[in-house]
């Protein structure tokens, strides 16, 4: 019995049955970079991670070229969650488009809707009532805390600790329930409207917020004590995936990842929107630029967010939460870029109006998309386990990356 054999595309020195195709990625190089990636040198092999893998934060596929345990190169493959939101938004009117942006990033969806709302409001010259602005700040900061606590859990989980994620979910659940009492939904809030918010603060929300605020800071601090000083955790993240300020700027990194490299760039302070200029808060930065710094910056931001929430609750004015607007919105032709500082970086929306009731073009910029590019450069030369640590510390969410 002679079986037809052929060299494996994965490793040309290995002969495999000619009719078997199922265990090879078998891509044909399309670009210079990909051809370089697909060339294997002595001792190297590909390890395919994802789209189903325990630590790829969604449906991300990463092809890793390894030499033993050492990562030589890697190539993220996107698009498993691509929904064509930009195209859908071009075919929906302005109100409906906001609804499509919600599920982009399911971990912090309020920021995803805040960006297009900001852009549309610029297009239409709408003044948002002050109470609505305060409510937006309040809900966004709550969402930021929810996102960061979840990040803390995921980070620990990707490093092998199983407990923090469940403690993190307790905090996140409380915030999510609270926001559900306000917005009506747990995950896809669809709460911001052009010219305000959908519904004023209610008793249910305020009572939940009060009980949560009374113990949140202490509880989160105590959760952090589990891994923040843990020798194993610190040794695995310190000095890993160092991103210096210059590279970070060139790569277009924003948010906590940039601040961990020592660049105090925060839209809330540098390009103020809503009522942030009136609030007092610090922008935590660190100079190390490694995974631990990215982690700690986020943990510091939680404290600042609690501080902001406290101020907002004290200073919130009375008044309407929605501007008077016509039912059918037809902005004048024009362009606007709305951006907010989210838990992962700058969420931006570039909207072009052509005078009809639908956006002519709606570009959605998601920070995770930019940050995911860094996984390759930051993990080269490290171990497979470090890939997970670096990816977790960059905190990408695939819903936003794939749009």
């Amino acid at each position, binding site marked *: 019995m002679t079986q037809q054999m052929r060299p494996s595309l994965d490793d040309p020195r290995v002969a495999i049955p000619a009719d078997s195709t199922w265990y090879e990625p078998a*891509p044909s190089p*399309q*670009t*210079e*970079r*990909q051809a370089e990636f697909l060339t294997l040198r002595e001792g190297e092999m590909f390890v395919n991670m994802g789209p189903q893998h325990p630590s790829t934060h969604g449906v991300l596929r990463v092809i890793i070229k390894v030499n033993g345990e050492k990562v030589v190169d890697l190539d993220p493959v*996107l*698009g498993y969650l*691509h929904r*064509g939101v*930009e*195209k*859908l938004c071009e*075919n929906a009117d302005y109100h409906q488009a906001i609804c499509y942006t919600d599920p982009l990033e399911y971990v912090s969806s309020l920021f995803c809707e805040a960006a297009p709302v900001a852009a549309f409001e*610029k297009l239409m010259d709408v003044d948002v009532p002050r109470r609505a602005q305060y409510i937006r700040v309040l809900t966004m900061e709550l969402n930021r805390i929810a996102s960061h606590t979840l990040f803390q859990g995921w980070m620990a989980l990707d490093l092998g600790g199983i407990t923090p994620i469940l403690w993190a979910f307790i905090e996140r659940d409380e915030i999510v329930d609270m926001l559900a009492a306000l917005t009506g939904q747990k995950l896809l809030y669809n709460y911001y409207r052009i010219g305000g918010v959908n519904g004023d603060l209610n008793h249910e929300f305020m009572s939940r917020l009060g009980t949560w605020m009374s113990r949140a800071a202490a509880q989160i601090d105590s959760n952090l004590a589990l891994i923040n000083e843990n020798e194993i955790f610190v040794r695995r993240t310190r000095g890993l995936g160092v991103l210096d300020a210059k590279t970070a*700027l*060139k*790569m*277009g*990194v*924003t948010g906590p990842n940039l601040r961990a490299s020592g660049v105090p*760039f925060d839209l809330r302070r*540098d*390009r103020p929107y809503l009522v942030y200029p009136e609030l007092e808060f610090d922008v935590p930065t660190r100079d190390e630029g490694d995974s631990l710094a990215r982690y700690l910056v986020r943990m510091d931001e939680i404290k600042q967010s609690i501080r902001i929430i406290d101020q907002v609750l004290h200073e919130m004015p009375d008044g309407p939460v929605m501007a008077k607007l016509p039912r059918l919105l037809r902005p004048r*032709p*024009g*362009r*606007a*870029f709305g*951006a907010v500082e989210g838990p992962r970086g*700058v969420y*931006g929306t*570039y909207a*072009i109006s*052509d005078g009809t009731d639908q956006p*002519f*073009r709606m*570009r959605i*910029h998601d920070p995770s*998309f*930019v940050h*995911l*590019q860094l996984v390759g450069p930051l993990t080269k030369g490290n171990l497979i386990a470090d890939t997970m640590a670096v990816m977790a510390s960059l905190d990408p969410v695939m819903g936003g990356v*794939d*749009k």
Partner: protein
Amino acid sequence: MDRRLAALLQETFGERLLAPVRQRYDESEIRIALKDATDTLRTLHDHPALRFEMLIDLCGVDTGEEMQVVYHLSSSKSGDWLRVIVSGLDRSAPRIASATFMWPGAEWMEREAYDMFGIIFEGNRDLRRIYMPDDYRSHPLRKDFYLADDASRSPAAGVRNMERVGTPADATAATVLRKSPGV
């Protein structure tokens, strides 16, 4: 937003600007031609008074008549934001020089623009599809890409392919393209 920025830009670029500098809310906007794109971006990046060192966003736009590439830059000196619209790309064969020489982070955004609009960025080492599968043929965000409608609602009702290259046979040019020349 810095009102002096408009004067500075006008002074620096002068005739390269296709339209006067526009400023609205906290955004400034300049519009340049395709041939000046690389030089302008380099000047914006290196000019000591401007220093637009951060690329916030890069995206393509299909106006129905031409293609545009839009850069959003942030200055590390003054904190101003600038929108650079490079207009005049040929719709049938859009090509532009890549910005990865200055901002390596633009690589994936250019890949996305290539995937969605077919804009070819010369100099990008890794210009291949990023969202769509490799064997996909059309570019979904172009205005002549027919959105597959709900089978129950559209006039052609449920017999339309998801992917369609070029213009549908049953449509006239006037009915298909939603054009917005002013953009």
